[in-house]
């Protein structure tokens, strides 16, 4: 999956890919103080592409510990579990559910939003592909606004950027691809070679997406994210990130 991090203070968008294996669960947001965790489980494409399996998010799980409430969204169905109560929905329906400050909205075949106490909200977007496509599979996109009011303890592949790092981009020069200039980025004490490119935001246009121009970090976000991407692999869909 590709990640786009919007940094509002420096008005930059940074992007990176995480290449992992199907079945692995990546922690996206982990806020132990608020008791909110978001994890995504990877699925693979149907076939290898140039010796590599493309991976996507097949399941996104949002767990709100204080209410013991778990929202598990896959490309097939949506399950909402609260203690021993479980409700199942499909992408075929449109509806809202509210419970103790948690609001879940499903827009048929399009997206789901989950908001907690009107302070935090997430959106999961459904990408349906042609069922008989030889390679592609249905997958999910995950969006979270930078206005979310997480605690300072928030972490995760996305969560760590709610506290905006200082980013400096300099030494912009032409790259091997004339459309993609290269530069040096200074972030978190690292100097990284970055490439200008674009990634897609599918919220406004689900089919073609909207290009978001960003500085691309190579090697699975190495140097931009804290630690290694493997540090963000968690055992269960409701696991909080264990910080080293």
């Amino acid at each position, binding site marked *: 999956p590709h990640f786009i991090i919007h940094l509002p203070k420096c008005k930059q968008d940074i992007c990176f890919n995480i290449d992992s294996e199907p079945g692995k669960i990546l922690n996206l947001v982990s806020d132990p103080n608020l008791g909110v965790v978001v994890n995504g489980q990877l699925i693979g494409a149907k076939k290898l592409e140039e010796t590599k399996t493309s991976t996507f998010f097949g399941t996104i799980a949002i767990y709100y510990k204080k209410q013991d409430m778990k929202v598990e969204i896959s490309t097939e169905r949506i399950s909402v579990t609260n203690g021993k109560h479980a409700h*199942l929905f499909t992408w075929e329906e449109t509806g809202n559910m509210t419970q103790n400050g948690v609001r879940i909205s499903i827009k048929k075949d399009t997206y789901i939003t989950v908001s907690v106490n009107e302070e935090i909200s997430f959106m999961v977007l459904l990408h349906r592909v042609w069922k008989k496509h030889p390679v592609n599979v249905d997958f999910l996109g995950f969006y979270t606004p930078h206005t979310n009011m997480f605690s300072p303890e928030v972490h995760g592949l996305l969560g760590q950027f709610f506290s905006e790092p200082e980013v400096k981009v300099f030494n912009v020069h032409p790259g091997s691809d004339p459309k993609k200039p290269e530069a040096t980025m200074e972030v978190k004490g690292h100097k990284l070679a970055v490439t200008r490119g674009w990634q897609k935001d599918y919220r406004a246009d689900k089919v073609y997406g909207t290009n978001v121009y960003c500085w691309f970090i190579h090697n699975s976000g190495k140097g931009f994210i804290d630690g290694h991407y493997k540090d963000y692999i968690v055992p269960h869909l409701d696991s909080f990130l264990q910080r080293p």
Partner: protein
Amino acid sequence: SIFTADEVENEEVEVETGDGIHIYSYKVEARITSRFAHTTICSRVVNTAQHAQSVVFNMQIPKSAFITNFTMNVNGITFIGSVKEKTVARSLYAKARARGKAAGIVRTNSNDMEMFRTEVHVPEGSKIQFEIHYEEMMQRKLGVYEYNLNLQPGKLVPQFQVDVYIYEPKGIAFVRAPNSLGEHFEGLVKVTTSNQKAHVCFKPTLHEQRKCHNCSSTAVDGVFTVQYEVIREDNGGDLQVSNGYFVHFFAPINLSPLPKNIIFVIDISGSMWGLKMKQTVQAMQTILDDLGHDDFFSIIDFNHNVRCWSDELVPATSIQTSEAKKYIQEIQPNGGTNINEALLRATHMLSNAMNYGVTDPRSVSMIILVSDGDPTVGEIKLSAIQKNVKKRMRDEFSLFSLGIGFDVDYDFLERIALENRGMAQRIYANQDASQQLRDFYQQVSSPLLRKILIEYPDEAVTDVTQNSFDKYFSGSELVVAGRVEPHGYSVLQSVITASSGTMDLSLQAEADVHELDEILALQRHVNPGFARQLWAYITVNQLLAERSLASTAAKKRKITQKIVSMALEHQFVTPMTAMLVESESGDERLLADSPKGPKQDCCAGSSVMGRKGLLTNGPPPWAQSPTAQPTALAVKAPLVEALPNRITLVEND
């Protein structure tokens, strides 16, 4: 000829039945389109005897069905049915009767079926064709729609065929045709299914119909059953628009049940002694075992006194339920019946539990009353009991009534249940009563949603049937129907709000206004007018329920007028209408009237014909006594000569 060439050929088939009446063809076709079943039964008969005699057409029809048409053709004279307001039909019938040109169609009651029986006296060689149509909505119970057809041809039939065609636009999950007719017919029912369509066919040959190799009697005698379920992808339900009407089937699945607080109020008066009590105890053993860990319960048993197994609701732990089972087993029925006091005690117990916060605020509180008789002790005026209970029942409580046998005033039990957000069921006091009690309990044991409101844009629809419901139970279905404004939107939308175990839900459903009609137009064996008839069916049934709750005569009259008007427009034989069956010339008439409810009847669970007190006249006097007719007359005799001067008629109201 009223017979097809095929059937004429079949006249060669010799089916010796002794009485000279040969049924050449018995065909049933049911078209179930989106839960609405239209059944046509057609029987073709010849009197091959050397004398005139009576020919009987007997059919058992589900009580929940409305007869919509009956036609008869005797030697080329066609009798056509038309639904009329009851007094009009009776008056026309009376005139014909006065001229000796009338015959009766009798309808009587059995457990779930009512008998439709007509009998004509015809000369030798006469060919008669009977055709009856009736319509009903398939009710989803415990996750299944069940279509039942009573097959009792009484004789071997060269052309015997049952076809059940099912069309469900959202797809069929499964179709089953359990062999309910006995081992004899094992493997003879053919089920063909595709995504949205199913065809169930039963076509036994003459040989297969025979009870034994050389027998001349038929083994076809019983209920032919087809069960099916539809595919449900959407918790918002299946909204369908056709022919200017909409139908919305709401049956969400995959929701956790709500916890329940349940008080069993059991009649232990003397009349319960014996089988009824034994069956109730048996049922309660299972019911108590089925209670969930989140449930609270208690038991109140009453005769002239009211006793509580526990004065307050207790959690349904294994210890408590086993204590309760022991208590029930030791009950010895005797004494009178004090329904009023028992129900008031139950409401008091529920109120206390709620006031003291014993129960979960989102739980469902229910009283299940099991009684077999009218009140005899304490308050015995039914209207006063109804009033007392209504006054004490909170909006959060529901009352479910189970009336065992026929000594009970079922109408009262139904009224009191409907008025208090519950429902009623008659339990037939036979060996099966325990199972009936358990089945009823199962239907209400898993409430999934509370306070369900199904809404549509005001400007898009009119004449919407009941759209707010107190509860939705797992395995059932809520159905709302209405008219769609002709110049409205191209897509009809609906918003459903409800409260589940832990959350408040708001779901949406939508349907294209034209799409289904285009699809139906391409289908065979469907009923394109299903939505209109389904809407009318639901409306009439709701009006009948409203009528029974009407507090004044004026209100009742107004509702009656509405029912009559709907029934005339949609040709339903209801308790307020009757079907007049007339010859083309209009000078000979038959009347199909609705039967009396089995009230205060003595013979619970007995066979239809064994029941007393239903027929005001005895069986038709000519039924068993063939009378010879001159041969010359018999061939081309007008029916008027053959019809009896005496009539039989079911009276009601």
